[in-house]
């Protein structure tokens, strides 16, 4: 995208007050911080935000949302993409958008609503010449700055259900566990199938994306989870929450379980599949999924547990997602028995 046109667009929005005013004097993102070899000690070193506490992004940083998001203990998530000047994304079918070197993906995790919102951590994925680098940043109590937390951290928070939980900021290696495929670190979220066609269209309009793929927007909108058709919701949920590890070349490849959206083989997605290395995670059950019987299905059992050694996913989860469990159980219950 050409900065000048973006500035014009911002100028047109100037009536909308303080934020737009801030944009007019907005600082540049530090491309050196993204592409350099160092690990920037502070989130502000990147310059992604004009008002960090309000998560107001600067020029070149675009917010986005996913149809079905990864569940992280009920945290609110604010997602952004940064593209260096003169670059754009390329669509690649229904899969991950292709990012130019120098791009960054930014995700802030927060609890609470409105003015009482508390930022906990911001995770960045930096696309450097030798690959993607994941870094977690932990917000201070004053909400003025987030500092690099290479080794991760545990933070006491109150989740939306009002429970006191020990929230885990992953360490850099744990970032890589979920983000690795065939030994390389890659993004997980921004797949065309999980992005709204409207957003993709806006990106094309802004010159930030080459085209809107036909397969955009295939995953259901998770907000329909209570009454929506169970199968697409459950498959989307498993794709988004589990498949980054449970696929060939992923961290849990040795399980033989492949939970990707596009996997059509019933056995591969767990139907009447015996566990391999589940240990006590099997919960006394013999198969990952027994059609019609969620109470006998290891997959539902592990999803409904928060106990380390049993709980799935293994990372980024201190508490059970009741909505996800309900959808997956409904899907298994509706399956035709053999």
């Amino acid at each position, binding site marked *: 995208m050409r900065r000048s046109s973006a500035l014009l667009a911002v100028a047109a929005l100037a009536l909308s007050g303080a934020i737009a005013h801030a944009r007019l004097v907005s600082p540049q993102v530090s491309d050196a911080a993204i592409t350099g070899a160092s690990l920037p000690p502070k989130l502000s070193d990147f310059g992604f935000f004009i008002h960090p506490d309000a998560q107001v992004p600067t020029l070149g940083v675009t917010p986005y949302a996913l149809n079905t998001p990864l569940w992280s203990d009920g945290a609110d998530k604010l997602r952004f993409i940064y593209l260096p000047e003169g670059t754009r994304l390329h669509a690649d079918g229904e899969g991950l958008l292709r990012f130019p070197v120098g791009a960054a993906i930014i995700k802030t995790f927060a609890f609470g609503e409105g003015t009482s919102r508390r930022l906990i951590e911001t995770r960045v994925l930096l696309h450097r010449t030798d690959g993607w680098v994941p870094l977690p940043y932990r917000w201070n109590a004053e909400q003025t700055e987030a500092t690099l937390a290479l080794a991760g951290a*545990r933070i006491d928070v109150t989740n939306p259900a009002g429970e006191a939980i020990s929230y885990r900021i992953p360490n850099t290696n*744990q970032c890589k566990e979920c983000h690795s495929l065939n030994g390389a670190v890659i993004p997980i979220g921004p797949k065309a199938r999980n992005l709204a066609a409207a957003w993709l269209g806006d990106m094309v309009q802004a010159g930030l994306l080459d085209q809107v793929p036909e397969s955009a927007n295939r995953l259901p909108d998770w907000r329909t989870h209570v009454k929506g058709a169970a199968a697409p919701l459950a498959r989307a949920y498993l794709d988004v929450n589990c498949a980054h590890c449970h696929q060939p070349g992923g961290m849990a490849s*040795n399980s033989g379980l492949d939970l990707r959206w596009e996997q059509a083989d019933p056995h591969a997605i767990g139907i009447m599949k015996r566990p391999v290395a*589940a240990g006590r*995670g099997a919960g006394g059950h013999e198969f990952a999924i027994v059609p019609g019987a969620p109470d006998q299905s290891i997959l539902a059992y592990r999803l409904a547990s928060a106990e380390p050694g049993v709980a799935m996913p*293994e*990372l980024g989860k201190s508490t059970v997602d009741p909505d996800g469990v309900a959808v997956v159980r409904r899907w298994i219950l509706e399956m035709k028995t053999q």
Partner: protein
Amino acid sequence: MLRTTLAAALLASAAPVWAATHMIAPGADAAEKLQEALIMAEPGDEIVLAAGRYPLSDGLSLDVAGVTVRGAGPALTILDFTGQQGSGEGLLVTSDNVTLRDFAIENPKGDGIKSKGADNIIYHRIRVTWTNGPSASNGAYGIYPVESTGILISHSEVSGASDAGIYVGQSQRITVRNSVASDNVAGIEIENSRDAIVTQNYVTRNTGGILVFDLPSLPVMGGGNVVVSGNLVAGNNTPNFAPPGNIVGNVPRGTGIMVMANENVWVDGNIVQDNPTAPFMVIAYSQRFDDARYNPFPRNVVIGENMVDSGATDPALPGAPLLLAAFGGALPPILWDGLSQAGAAPALAVTGDIAGWSLNLQRQGQALAEAQPGPLTAPEQGIKWDASAVGAPPELEARLK
């Protein structure tokens, strides 16, 4: 750049002169310091853990190649996961050429140490212990390398695993030696792996001692070329405490050395005592499967000269009293299910003078209740196979010197 070049050279030589050493000592911030060192280490570096107990609330992980993690000894440096709140294992290694030595992991909630896609890894003088003894609530595997080429496990010790103490899965070029596996469901298990040797280990008080399995529907299948020799497999009679649903949950207590499916397995020179269901068991995979790539039958399992007692005096098998009466008080030491692949190598050859019996099953998956027990007849010679690639690559042994 200079450092990278040096690091590459160091990987080739065994004595890292230029490598950095990261010293970690017990203390309030030890867990964070240790994890930071595991992240910031560069190839060739050594992370040294001083003696003491390190309480850890989260799993550790290492993803840098060529790093050594060294404690003061398996009794002295203890990574204590009793209060673990997250992660599926105590320590996860995902990089190549790593050496883990001289430390212990206690009470991990899931697996002890898992190394995945981590080629040429050494576990030396590592201890993984669930301190409460056998319990279904313990983690599954103690030492757990998977999907790797080049694995050396030596002088290590695992007890209390609710699946397998030392478990090597979907890997090749493997040595498990001079280690102790006790009070696990399976002492040592080689699963869906090739070119492995299990030797000079002491395997006791497990449900089953040494298991060589090949299972269907895994990314890596076709287990074989496995040598089990010179082990002491004694007193494996702990009631099976595996959580139901796991394949080892089917292993009867009192099993010594068990081979399921696989090709070319050589069992020789072991001392096999007091395993009262079956000192040796050779069987086909018994469950239903739907995987055209999978061969459920054992092929060319050879049981050579082993020092074995009179056999199974207290078998955990249906109809045990009748069986014992029929065989004169003790079942012969080798149990075979009678199944072999038509047109392939015989399932089992017995080159020594050990007697056996057969269930005489007629087809894969047949119920045990339909067995027609009788004496074993098996060829006295196996088929030769090329064992030159068996065991960890020599450079791993050299790295320990």
